[in-house]
């Protein structure tokens, strides 16, 4: 990848990590807001440079569009982000960017941090324009992932800024919604950019996941199989019994993975005691939920044979391999990188399980055992509250899985098949992950995109922890 672009983007990423934890005060809020507007314009141009996409007709995005046109939506979201100040700044950008620090370490205060970020983004954009036509498909995806991470920082910090400025309704409400949608769009592109299962090159609007089942002939394939299970669950046709089945498989696989890490000696290869504890807690959360619900829930809808088949493949092929590896320390040590990659992949699958459970009950596809004495029937259609304990349990497992994924990806190098991810970008992704409470949009698919973030004070504490 071009040196000018790469060096400047690395700098921009470091400034972005600072920006995430350096909220403006009342005096600098509007200045920072204008710099954010500059960044939105720059990132939109850079996205266009990398992908060659031009903006289509403006439309209100919804979740289905996120699946169909993730990159186009990111480009649109950047352009559509309402400017913080309706009166345009009469000064040229060079005047706004004058207060440039020498490097991130010397940046004093939010204005300097944001100036550094905007200028680094602008210069990396120049590098990109000069070098984009020499870049391979994988390099373009890497660049796109980096741009999207910056866009996510922009969305999160814009959300904070609007809170600070007290823009709660009317035009401010629309601005907040646009920022929340941009965060979801950016995160989806970051995810795609790091996903080697997605097509390389210029296929920018792929993303209907196939019904392909990933075989687990070796433990190296286990993380991909788990990711695929999450994708298949996200297609929207999984029944409640599919959810129970895959939750059971994931709980058992977690426990076997814990056994492997313990057999390998937890100080091995940077695997922390904390990861083992988190995986164990994740397994317990899933197992308790599924054993409590199993005898009480049945499905009224046909379900997803593909998701079920992927779950069976993990249970019938991956699980025994893990259990075998846990029996001998040398074998266990050999597979630790795969188990760590597996731990990182469990978060998306757990989220998909929770969403699929919510979707099944919302779609009237769940029956619940009617255990009342006077009931003429054994089953009745389930209401939300019947499935609430299961969804609550899965929700808790999602939180644990996110922490485990952060733990699993902090110290361990990415597998060779994964697209390049710069260390500073990875750190930024972890910082962003800590801010997210609920980034995944809610069903149904026509709902508007939205996101929720931790307040900035708590995220700063998390970053320092």
């Amino acid at each position, binding site marked *: 990848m071009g040196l000018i672009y790469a060096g400047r983007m690395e700098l921009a990423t470091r400034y972005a990590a600072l920006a995430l934890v350096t909220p403006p005060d009342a005096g600098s809020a509007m200045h920072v807001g204008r710099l954010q507007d500059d960044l939105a314009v720059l990132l939109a141009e850079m996205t266009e440079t990398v992908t060659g996409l031009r903006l289509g007709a403006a439309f209100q995005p919804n979740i289905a569009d996120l699946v169909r046109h993730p990159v186009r939506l990111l480009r649109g979201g950047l352009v559509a982000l309402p400017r913080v100040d309706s009166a345009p700044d009469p000064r040229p950008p060079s005047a706004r960017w004058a207060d440039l620090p020498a490097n991130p370490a010397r940046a004093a205060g939010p204005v300097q941090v944001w100036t550094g970020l905007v200028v680094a983004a602008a210069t990396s954009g120049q590098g990109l324009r000069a070098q984009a036509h020499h870049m391979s498909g994988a390099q373009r995806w890497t660049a796109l992932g980096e741009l999207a991470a910056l866009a996510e920082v922009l969305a999160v910090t814009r959300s904070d800024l609007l809170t600070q400025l007290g823009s709660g309704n009317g035009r401010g409400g629309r601005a907040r919604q646009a920022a929340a949608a941009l965060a979801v769009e950016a995160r989806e592109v970051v995810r795609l950019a790091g996903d080697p299962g997605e097509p390389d090159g210029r296929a920018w609007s792929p993303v209907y996941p196939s019904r392909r089942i990933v075989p687990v002939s070796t433990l190296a394939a286990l993380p991909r199989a788990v990711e695929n299970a999450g994708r298949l669950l996200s297609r929207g046709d999984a029944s409640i019994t599919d959810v*129970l*089945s895959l939750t059971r498989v994931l709980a058992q696989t977690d426990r*076997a993975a814990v*056994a492997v890490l*313990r057999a390998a000696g937890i100080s091995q290869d940077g695997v922390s005691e904390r990861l083992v504890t988190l995986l164990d807690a994740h397994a317990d959360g899933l*197992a308790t939920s599924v054993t409590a619900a*199993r*005898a009480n829930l049945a499905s009224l809808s046909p379900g997803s044979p593909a998701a079920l088949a992927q779950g069976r493949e993990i249970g019938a092929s991956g699980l025994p391999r893990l259990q075998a590896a*846990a029996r001998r320390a040398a074998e266990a040590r050999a597979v630790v990188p795969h188990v760590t990659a597996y731990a990182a992949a469990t978060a998306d699958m757990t989220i998909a399980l929770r969403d699929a459970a919510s979707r099944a009950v919302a779609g009237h596809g769940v*029956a619940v055992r009617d255990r009342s004495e006077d009931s003429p029937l054994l089953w009745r259609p389930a209401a939300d509250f019947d499935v609430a304990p299961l969804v609550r349990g899965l929700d808790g497992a999602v939180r644990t899985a996110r922490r485990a994924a952060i733990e699993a990806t902090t110290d361990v190098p990415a597998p060779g098949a994964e697209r390049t991810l710069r260390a500073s970008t990875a750190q930024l992704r972890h910082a962003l992950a800590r801010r997210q409470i609920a980034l995944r949009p809610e069903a149904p698919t026509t709902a508007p995109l939205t996101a929720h973030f931790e307040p900035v004070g708590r995220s700063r504490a998390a970053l320092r922890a």
Partner: protein
Amino acid sequence: MGTSGGQAVVLRPDDFEVTEVLAAVRGVLDVALERCDAGSAAALEICAAWEGLDAVSASSVIEPTMQSIFGAIVVLATARRLLRGAIIRVEPLSSAFLLAEALRHLDAAASILAAEASGEGPSWA
């Protein structure tokens, strides 16, 4: 089917249709799940067996009475006996393989419970 009907299936399974026997197996597994620790390895194996039953027949349940003095391991023995009888009679033959898989999960659950009773962990942990 009432509790007395449920008892009849458990006592004389060959007098009933395979689907009724499988419904009784579900009822016995329900009791076994109640008598296992929530979220335990054995309970997960019982859930896996339940999935096998769902692949063969619709999720009806016949609730038999199981004396509360019997622990999960004894209750599971009843489920395994019923399931073994169903495997011999089930049509089409391809369903027998699914039920055999469910039986393997019940055997695994019984092994785990037996190991726990004698103070051992699972063999692979």
